[in-house]
Each structure stands twice: as C-alpha cells, then as structure tokens.
C-alpha cells in the first residue's frame, strides 16, 4: 500500500519568493502571505440576525460588525462581509467551522472558506501609494481608520480589505482574495510595489 502525504500548499506557495524585490535600498513596503488560517463565513438565518449577533458576542466578547468594520479579540477577527454576515478569521481550529457549528446552530448558516482565500498583509512607508494603484477606496488615515473594512475589488478581483492594528508605527492593510485569483493579484501587487522596494515574506501568524 502506497504512502500518501498530505502536504498543504497555500495559494501563493509556488510563486512567493521571500526576500527583497524591486527597487534596492530601504524597502518601502513589506508583503506577507499569512498561511494556514481558519476562515468561516457566518450568514444569519432569516430573521435571526440579532440571535447571531448575540451568539457572536457570547463567543468572542465583541459585537459582530454591522457595518464595514473588522473587530476582534486575542484569537479571532470578525470581518464584515455583507448585510447580516461576517467572516471569522482565526488559527488552529479553535474557531474553525466545526468549533463554531454549535455556537451558531439555529441562528446562522456557516460556510468554510479557509481554503477559498489567500491572505496578504501589506504595510510600510509606501503602503498607501501602492494600494492607490489597486484600490479605488480612499485609504487616508482619517477616512480609513484602524478597523475599517471594505468588500471591494482590486485589479477586477474581488477582495475583502481591512486595516489591522498599526505595527511599528506603520499602517497594516489585510487583503483576503479568492485562492484561484491569488497568484494573479500577487503579480499585480508586485508590479505596483516594485518601484518602492519590497520585502516579501510569509507567516503562520495572524497579524
């Protein structure tokens, strides 16, 4: 009987090359693929939005977003994805689809999207200049504050965008993109970012 190994490959595994890219000198940007996360989409059953919100509050200790926002606690981020629906982003199965099934039983339908998305985290001095090439959204700090989110498109590709907590005084933007589009968007990002100089990496840790 043959031995089968079940190595996982993230959507960018084959194309991401860690290290510097583009213009030399101090990198204006860092690009990080976050790998191997759990992502569950919760959609309220008809007329059960309040129950779903209560269930989320009980589980996560924060109110689920009702407008384009991302909120979170230490080990999960709740990201608005449409009216009466949100994503739960987490690691290690603690809030994966099986763990959440009982939490939202009767109040929401759950769909596992863990493998359906790539997660790219972008930060650095020139992050807004680079994202201006991809996104029609105004990312000025006064307009798109920490915790702002958007269901939008970049390069004709559907993207969930949200601003995470600042890191080292720099804004951090997170992009969830459909897995099968990820390489294509990645190359567009690299093209857009090259002039600023990029540091490319990947991580198993959520930002």
């Amino acid at each position, binding site marked *: *009987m*043959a031995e*089968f*190994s*079940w*190595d*996982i*490959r*993230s*959507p960018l595994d*084959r194309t991401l090359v860690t290290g510097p890219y*583009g*213009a030399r000198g101090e990198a204006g940007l860092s690009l990080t693929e976050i790998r*191997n996360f759990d992502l569950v*989409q919760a*959609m*309220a*059953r*008809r*007329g059960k939005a309040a129950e779903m919100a209560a269930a989320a509050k009980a589980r996560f200790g924060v109110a689920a977003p009702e407008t384009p926002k991302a909120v979170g606690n230490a080990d999960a981020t709740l990201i608005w994805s449409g009216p009466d629906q949100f994503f739960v982003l987490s690691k290690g199965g603690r809030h994966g689809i099986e763990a959440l099934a009982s939490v939202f039983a009767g109040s929401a*339908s*759950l*769909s*596992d*999207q*863990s*493998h*359906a*998305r790539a997660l790219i985290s972008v930060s650095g001095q020139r992050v807004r*200049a680079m994202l*201006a*090439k991809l*996104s*029609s*959204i*105004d990312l*000025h700090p006064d*307009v798109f504050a920490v915790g702002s989110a958007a269901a939008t498109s970049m*390069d*004709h*590709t559907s993207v969930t965008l949200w601003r995470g907590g600042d890191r080292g005084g720099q804004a951090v933007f997170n992009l969830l993109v*459909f*897995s*099968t*589009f990820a*390489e*294509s*968007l990645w*190359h*567009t990002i690299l*093209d*857009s970012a*090259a*002039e600023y100089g990029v540091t490319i990496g990947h991580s198993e840790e959520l930002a």
Partner: protein
Amino acid sequence: MVGGAQTHRLADGGLIDRSVPLSFRFDGKTLLGFQGDTLASALVANGVKLVGRSFKYHRPRGILTAGSEEPNALVELRSGARREPNTKATTAELYDGLEAASQNRWPSLRHDFLSVNQLFAPIFVAGFYYKTFMWPAKFWEAVYEPAIRRAAGLGRAAGIADPDHYDKAWAHCDVLIAGSGPAGLAAALAAGRSGARVILCEEDFVPGGRLLADGGTIDGLPAAEWIARTLAELGSMPDVRIMTRTTLFGVYDGGTYGAIERVNDHLPVPPEHQVRQRLWRIVAKRSIVAAGAIERPIVFAGNDTPGVMMASAMRSYVGRYAATPAKRVALFTNNEDGWRTVQTAIGAGLQVAAVIDARPDVSPAHRTLASKNGFPVLNGSVAGVDGGKDGVRKIAVSLTGGARAEVDADGLAVSGGWNPSVGLTSYHRGRPKWRDDIAAFVPDGAPPGMVAVGAANGAFGLGACLRQGFEAGAAAASDCGRGGTAGSAPVADDEAFSLTPLWHVAGKGKAFVDQQHDVTASDVELAQREGFESVEHLKRYTTLGMATDQGKTSNIAGLAIMAAVTGKSIPETGTTIYRPPYVPVAIGAFAGHHRDETFHATRLTPSHHWAAEQGAVFVDTGLWKRAQWYPRAGEKDWLESVTREVKAVRGGVGFCDVSTLGKIDVHGPDAGVFLDRVYINSFSNLAVGKARYGLMLREDGIVYDDGTTSRLAEHHYFLTTTTAKAGLVMQHLEFCRQVLFPELDVQLTSVSDQWAQFSIAGPKTRELLREIVDPSEDLSNEGFPFMGAREVALRGGIKARLFRISFSGEMAFEISVPARYGEALVRNLMIAGKSLGVTPYGTEALGVMRVEKGHVAGPELNGTTTAADLGLGKMMSTKKDFIGRVMAGREALVAPDRQVVVGVKPTDKARRLRSGAHVIPKGEIPGPGNDQGYVTSVCFSPTLDQWIGLGLVERGRERIGEIVRAHDPLRGEAYDVELCNPVFYDPEGGRQRG
C-alpha cells in the same frame, strides 16, 4: 559634430540652469541646451526656426506657441521602440541625449519634395478628397487613401511593442485644482490653510503658470519669490499634494477626474521599476479650474511663416528660457496685453522693429515708449509676410486709412487676445457663453462641484486671478466642512485690458486658421458657400480643429470667420461640443498594467503547477488557465495526445481537474424549496447523500445553465454550475434569494475556491479509489450507488467528498478536497494509480467524451435553446412552479419544427466534420430558405474511429437516419452527413452505472 553655439541664448536671466548643459540631436545635428529647457526653447536658443512641414501643403513651419496648444512644432521624439510621433517640442522637456526628428518631409526638412503641393494649392481645398477621389470607388482603399496617407500626415509610430510600463492609480481629495498659475496657487493656499485635502495638477514641470514668463509683483514680492514662498507653505501641509507634469484631461461622473502624469517622460529611459506615465483617477468633492487662457492668433496671409509666433510665447522664450526667437521683432496686436512683449524684448536687448496695433488708439505711455526706443507704432494690421523656410524677412502692413507700409523684421509676435481654457468646464455638454468686453467665450456653469477662476474664467488681471482663486479655494474647503482659517488673499495690481476684436485680415496669399490641419480662411468661406454653415459641419468638412491640438489656437478664429461670412454674431454661430481628453493621452496609459500576459486577471486551478510540470498545454477558458492536453514525447500533434487520453480513460482510468466548475453552498431550512424554484426539476425530494442533474431556465424560458446538485445534509445542498456561467449563476441565485423570494430562509456562498475537485473516470476508477480512500469506506455499487454523494475519509487522515457522477459515460467519481490539499491529491492519485496506468486528461479529451456521450455543453446551451431542444424536456416538472416555466410554454418555444440536438456523422468515415457547417436537405441549393440548422460541437471519436458531432437541426430527432448535406461556405466544403442518435457511446448507460 557639436553645434555648441547657442546663438540665440541670453547671457543671463531665465529659469534655466546654465551649469547643467544638455546635449541633444535634432534631425541628426547635435545641439546644446540647458536644464530647464523644453525642446522648443533649446531649438530657439540655437537659432532653429524651421522645425516641420505642414500636413497638407508641406509648408515650412516654425514654433508658434510655448505650450500644449502648439499646432506646428511636432516632432518624432526618441527612436526605435520608444519613437513617439507628433510630440510637441513646446512641452517636451529637454534631457541629455534627447533625439528628435522633424516630420512629414522628404528627403529633408529644408528640401522637401512634396512642397510642390503648394503649387497645386488651389485644388487642395476643403472637401478636395471627397470630390476628387470618387471614381472608381474600389480605388479608394487600394490606391488613393494609401497615397494620400503617405503624402499628408504626421509622424510615424514605432511599429513595435512599447518597452515601457504604465500604471493607473486613484487619488482622493476635497479640492482638486487644475493649474498652478496665480489663481491656482492662491486657491491651493486658501484651501490648504482651511485644512482641506488638496490636489493641484500642473501640466508644466515647474509650477507658476504665466508668472514664470511674465513675472509681476505679488504681496510686494517679485513673482519668483512669491512662488517659492507659496510652494514652501503648501509643501508644509501634509494633505496638499502638488503634481507637476500632470494634465487634468477629463471630467467624469460623480466628481471623478482623469489626469495623466508624465512620470518619466523627461528622462531618456524610465529608471528601473518605474513607469513612464501614470493615469490618475481623482475623486474630488470640489474642483477649481485655474487652467488659464490661450492666446489666439490673428489670421493673415503668411501667418504660418517660421518666425511668426504668439506674443506670449515670445515672452516665454525670452523671459523664462532666456532664448530669443528673433533679433529684430515686430508686434502685431489688437489688445493691451500684447504690448508686454515690447517691454520683454527691450529688456532682453532686442530691437523692436514696429508695433502694428489694430486698435483705433494707443496710449500716450506706449507712444512715449516707442519714441524713446525708436520704433514706429503703426495703426493698422498685417497684410502679408515675406519670408520662407529661413523665417520672416519683411512684413507688409495695411494702415488704417488705406495706405501701406513695410517693416523689416526677422520675427513677428502676434496677439489677438486670449481665449479662456473652458474645456474642463464644458465636458458635461456645457456650452460657454460669450463676453463682449474681452471678446471671448467664458464658462457658463460647470459640472457639479466645479468652478472656474482667473484667466480660465475671463479674469485676465493678476490681482483678479489671485482674488478669485483664493475665494474659490476658501469656499471649496468650507463646502467640504473644513473650517480652518484661510487668512487673507495675496495682493497684486490689475493690469488694464483693452481689446478691439480682429480675427482675419483679408489679403493676398494663404492665411491659416488651423495650422496643424492646413485649414485656411478661404476654406472656411468655401465651406459656407457649399452649405456647411453649422460649426459642427464646418469642423467635419474642413477638418478644422480635428488635429491632435484639437484646435486650441484655431477653433474660435474659424467660427468668427464663419460668423462674419454668414452675417451672424459669434455667440449665434456657437461653439462645437467640447470633449475630453484635453491633451492626447497614450493608449498605454489607459491600459496600464493590463497588457500581454497580464491583459486580464487569471485564475489557476489547484493542480496548475503540477500540470505545468507535466508539460500540459493550457487553454484560456474565461479567466481560467486549464490543462487542454498533456503531450507525451513522440506525439506528433494534439489529436494524437487527446486520442491517447480518451483511450486511456475508456480502457483504464484517468482524471481531470474540474475545479473550474462553479460551486455554491445552499444553506437553510428552505434550501430545497429554493432549488425547486430555480431548477426545472425537483430537489426538495432529493435524499441526503444523493446527487441530481439540474437544469435552470432564464425567465424567458430559454435554458440558462446546468450542473449537478448534491444534498449533503438536511439543510445543506452543494450546487455546481458550468465553468462559464459560475459567476453569473451566483448573481442570478442571489437575485432570486434577495429579490424574488425574500420569504425563504436560505443562504448562499460561493465555495468554488474552497474545493479542489477532480473527475476520475474509466473502468478502473474503483480500483484507483480503493488505493486512496480509507478501507472502511464502501465503494461498491450497493455502498456507493450511481449518483451517490457523501464525505469519505482518505488514507492519511484527511476528509474528502465523493460524488458518483459521470460526464464521460464511464464509471466515474468526482472527488473533492479542501483546496490547499489539491496538489497533494493529484500527486497521490498518480501514486495510487501508477500500476493502473492512470492518465491525466485535459479539456479536449473531456470534450471528446462528452460529445461521444451526447452531453450538451456551452455550444448547445447557447442562449437560444429550450430544455426540449436539448432533449431534456421531460425534466420540466409539472408539479411545481419554477423560473421560466410560463414563458417556456410560448408558441414559438414549443413549435414542432424547432432545431433540436441530434447527432451528426459524415457518411464518408474519413472526412473531417467541422463545427459551424450548415445543415441543408440533400439535393437542394443552399440558401437561407432551406437552412435547417448547424453543427454545434465536433470531435474525432477514437471509440468510433471517425469524426462525429452534435448539431441543432430542425425536427432533428424525427429524422434519425436521414442523409443531409453539411454546407460549409466558410471553408468551401460540402459533404453528406447522417443525422443520428446523439448518444454515440454506450446509449444504455451501463458503463457509468456498472
């Protein structure tokens, strides 16, 4: 050879950096200029007067303006793949090593063969082509047009791919300002100080507008110092952004503006990783047009002679670039502003030959200036220019009262007044209004949120420009809720402005209105005589204003001349419609990143990289890259590879990545009811653990899409769509859920990307699966019957979904795993199936097997067919309502003579069948009257060893066995085919159930 002598450069002054000399080549000759020059100013500094040949008559032309309105000084810039035709020398920044060539001349600029066209000028009038090249008609494309294009025309495109990159970006602000002259800078100051987010776009590479050439005093400071102080203050504001080399070219809906930034046009080659140009889409709550005005020529005989130049342009060359277009200058003006040129010329030590002023009176101050500097002031107008390719020699003046005079000069500055740049205010179909006091059109309203200020608004005094700009800046900021203190407006005096309109001086010789398109005053008069009086007709008949300069120096003169000959006023005559872009924008900038392999986004299947390793040939299907076939060494063509793949499946086992199918989770207590309404057949009665083929119609009764849907749990269905319609079906279902059936408790999510899905097919499928599926799972016919669907454990611990469905007609399963395991699965299938000879197959083999099996796909689900046409009419439930049911019952959709799916095979087994061939009854002459349908899908069937196909044929199913004619006029073929059962392979279906 270095022609180093800048014979026409002043020793000091100007905004050039004499410490940075730049070497450049014009028509092969090496010349020198300085940092801060444009190509035009450097040519002026080198005494170059002749820079091009005109479009139609090949007349020698010089430099008319110093801005983006230039009609004459067009060159081919750069060489090789970067060659850019029709580049304005007046806006091209000089850089070291710049190469430029004059256009539309042969063999050389000075000795141009086709200048003989001037001798035939009397026949090359407006409408000449339409009247002359009428017969024989077929000669137009073959002979006349190519000949005309060679003779008349502009520069040559590179003809090879542009090696540079372009990109696009968005910007957002409260207040967007077009132009950095005094009005624009004052607007930016007021808005910025109030706390607004400001973007100021300036076409030039230096901010300042006319101040750069004309100077002036603002807040007691010389203009240059005021500009520096203002830029420093604006630079200290984090939310004020000044974008030089950026032209705001268009106004679109909802406060969106288009701008083109020439990021690296001022360098020979963009630095590594940088773009040449960037297209901006700017979203602004308010916008302020401070785009200035364009000085307009006066039309007179010989007004295109090199050395005739706009008065303001002459001031720019002398004042800004310290370059003198002439040694002995005459001025022809009809307004006060033109006289500034005299001061500039005297200040630079040039001789003033004469001032020809068309106004009845000239102020005593000017007369004093004239006598002090020893030049005459002539009341009258220029009647003609004596000169040629070496420039102006003599100027003929017709004096008020009828006498004539002559002036010796090597340069003539002309000012006919100023036309406000109303383009941006008029791009939403606005029509400017006429103002008599300045004899010019000014904006009459503007798109929402926009206001024009300064010269663009007809305010020509420096003080007024500053006041209007500042007030508008403060008001715009306040409109955006920015309550900071703007402080007080910069102060300057207002110059007097007086003008006597003069458009055209009648005289002997060609007098040009549109110099770029060689349209003369007599062409305008001819257009009127021939009935083309409307300005829109005038434009098209004479091509006035249709060149790359879009008539910036010619449109108003043209319509003024039309007004004069028709006896109407200028406002009665009206303007043509203004349309963006304000300046030409390279298509490359609109394309941005989207060219070549990044023309559009692509989607890759989970097995893509593995398939690439195997040497798969990929095909674009929508955005997807799919493996089309997997060639093996020694196979001579695709058909051999595909045939091998089909035989391997039919005889053993193969697999194919079908992850591209749309996959949708349908959740909720009403999921079954919902599916009953969107599909023609029932799903609420589908047992958990089973799959069913479903067909959905459009509201009009035509088939929309098909696919299998499985019931995974009581309240959870898993629906699949075709690859092509995945996104559309998701939209359609969301529409049904949210709009048509909001009462149903159902939730939808796309899971297309969540699952890597493979079809495993062939008689040895079960053997392969037993290798990889955990032994505890029962895969027997009883344990996992045809159309079963359930989760199974795989060896090694992961879970998969297994669906016993078949598209190939073989014993088949589809297996799906979460996508990150997709590549592992495909590698494990190869390991598990090694001893079975497992064969990966591509979309071609998939297509062959579906045609052999008579399954319909895209070519049959083509937006015109009903369920019955496809042979699936019996699936339409009569026990429930569903989308499309009522409309599907319309007479024409149930008519007995509809074209329906049927099998087609050539009677000659060796003949290749082609899709698209029309079906004609045997023995009849083909024509629309007896066209009974066409062949939709074909393949070479290895199983039947001949070409076979499916077709949509009138009453096809009643005609099985009939021989008809396949008529293929596109390929010049006609041959006999037999109509047959569309299920060519295993019509009883025993193999897939086995």
